[in-house]
């Protein structure tokens, strides 16, 4: 069986701060690059034989764009889903050139055409 783990958590205090900085643990030697906070978990699970298929940290919610399709018109809004009773019904990870292309791909997805909405969140790039 495959499961998606949807990570919920408190955003960093100031969303404009570098999100990578907030999720790293301080290294013993400041000259060393600090390791990501999830790395010990990843090591432990890999050692346990857990298959980790796909995962990534996201950019903060302030970078989110939400789309919906109404009468064939693609509607964009700045920001994540508003708080509603909607549930996450699926997810996909895509690799495209830019946000315009991502909006196109999302707008073609059946969920968008059936009254649902799709939040587009960029993954945190390797730095």
């Amino acid at each position, binding site marked *: 069986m495959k499961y998606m783990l949807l990570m919920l958590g408190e955003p960093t205090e100031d969303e404009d701060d570098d999100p990578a900085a907030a999720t790293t643990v301080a290294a013993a030697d400041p000259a060393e690059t600090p390791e990501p906070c999830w790395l010990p978990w990843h090591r432990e699970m890999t050692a346990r034989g857990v298959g980790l298929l796909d995962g990534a940290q996201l950019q903060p919610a302030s970078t989110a*764009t939400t789309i919906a399709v109404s009468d064939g018109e693609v509607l964009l809004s700045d920001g994540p889903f508003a708080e509603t009773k909607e549930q996450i019904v699926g997810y996909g990870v895509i690799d495209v*050139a830019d*946000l315009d292309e991502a909006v196109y791909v999302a707008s073609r997805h059946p969920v968008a055409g059936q009254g649902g909405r799709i939040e587009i969140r960029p993954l945190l790039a390797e730095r």
Partner: protein
Amino acid sequence: MTDADAAVAQAFRQEWGRIVATLIRMTGDWDLAEECAQDAFATAIARWPADGVPDRPGAWLTTTARNRALDKLRRSKNEAAKLKEVAMLSEPAEPPGGPGEAGDSGLTDDRLRLIFTCCHPALALEARVALTLRTLAGLSTAQIARAFLVPEATMAKRLVRAKHKIRDAGIPYRVPPAHLLPDRMIGVLAVLYLLFNEGYSATSGPDIVRPDLSAEAIRLGRVLTSLMPAEPEAIGLLALMLLTDARRPARLDPDGNVVTLEEQDRTRWDAAEIGDGLALLEAARRHRRAGPYQLQAAIAACHARAADPEDTDWAQIAGLYERLLDLGSSPVVELNRAVAVAMAEGPAVGLALVDSIEAAGRLPGYHLLKATRADLLRRLGRLDEAAESYQAALELAATEPERRFLSRRLAEIAAGPGSC
């Protein structure tokens, strides 16, 4: 002000947007682009008085800003900065492909990339407006904050967030491709029109140095139409803004009271702006692709052409509102059409239209609906009902000048017929 100071000030108005736009393309870094553009102008202030104003101030400033950016990137220890520096050295200072050559949608001026990116629909509307004023028009964060009556820190945060979203969400820095262009053009024009109205409608404010947003919108409209001369709606919007702005000197009386179009002293209208607006509207019409901005400009033109209110071609105005309604139903447009019909065919016909809008419940709580109804009743001599509607409008009106206007009308009715 010395000649050199004046030259810097003029270059700032003419070149700021272009320099920032070019630097963003070369570095991909909005903050760095703004910083280096600012440094270039500071250098000009220091050097032009002694060295003289260069022959091509824009080129001088761009080169200075570019060198500054290279300098900063070179000094940075950051790997990403080093990559940017290498990329920059291979970038031409002039945008790839001049006008007319096939690039993004065949148009490649950096300012166009900047306009379309600032007005990207994935940014919140208020962010689009602020970003356009900061990067393209060169207003300071403090000036923009004053214009929208928010604390400077709030505006600074809004700008930072918008720039981060462009970077982190991968909003492309380009003129959208042909299949996206019509929709995105509507978005750009909406931002300019919002800017214009923000400057035109706000009749009061605590700050006398509040920047003139209408003038900025007109200036940006001129840039846009010069860069995209084949977009009739962009030309139509510029015409609309000019024809509306021309009435500004007559809009308020010395006490700050609203003067209706009918009562305005038309000799105070700006003849140069009207001439400009009418010529632009004519140019837009030649493209034979009507749209909402051209139609609204055509309505403004009907008023502009009438030296006396009596000469207004209300039948044509009513027809233009009808065409606007064909493009998309809006209760406010319906109300305006009712006013035009009332002028063309008599207040009774207009009143019937207003009543049907009200009966349909399309504009609940809208003071201008009540005010229009009151005005038509007054003209029909039904003064008691008119007074009732003025009272209702007065309770709904939001701004002080509007309330004063409605109170005055109410007082006139109370004084009895013959006094108005």
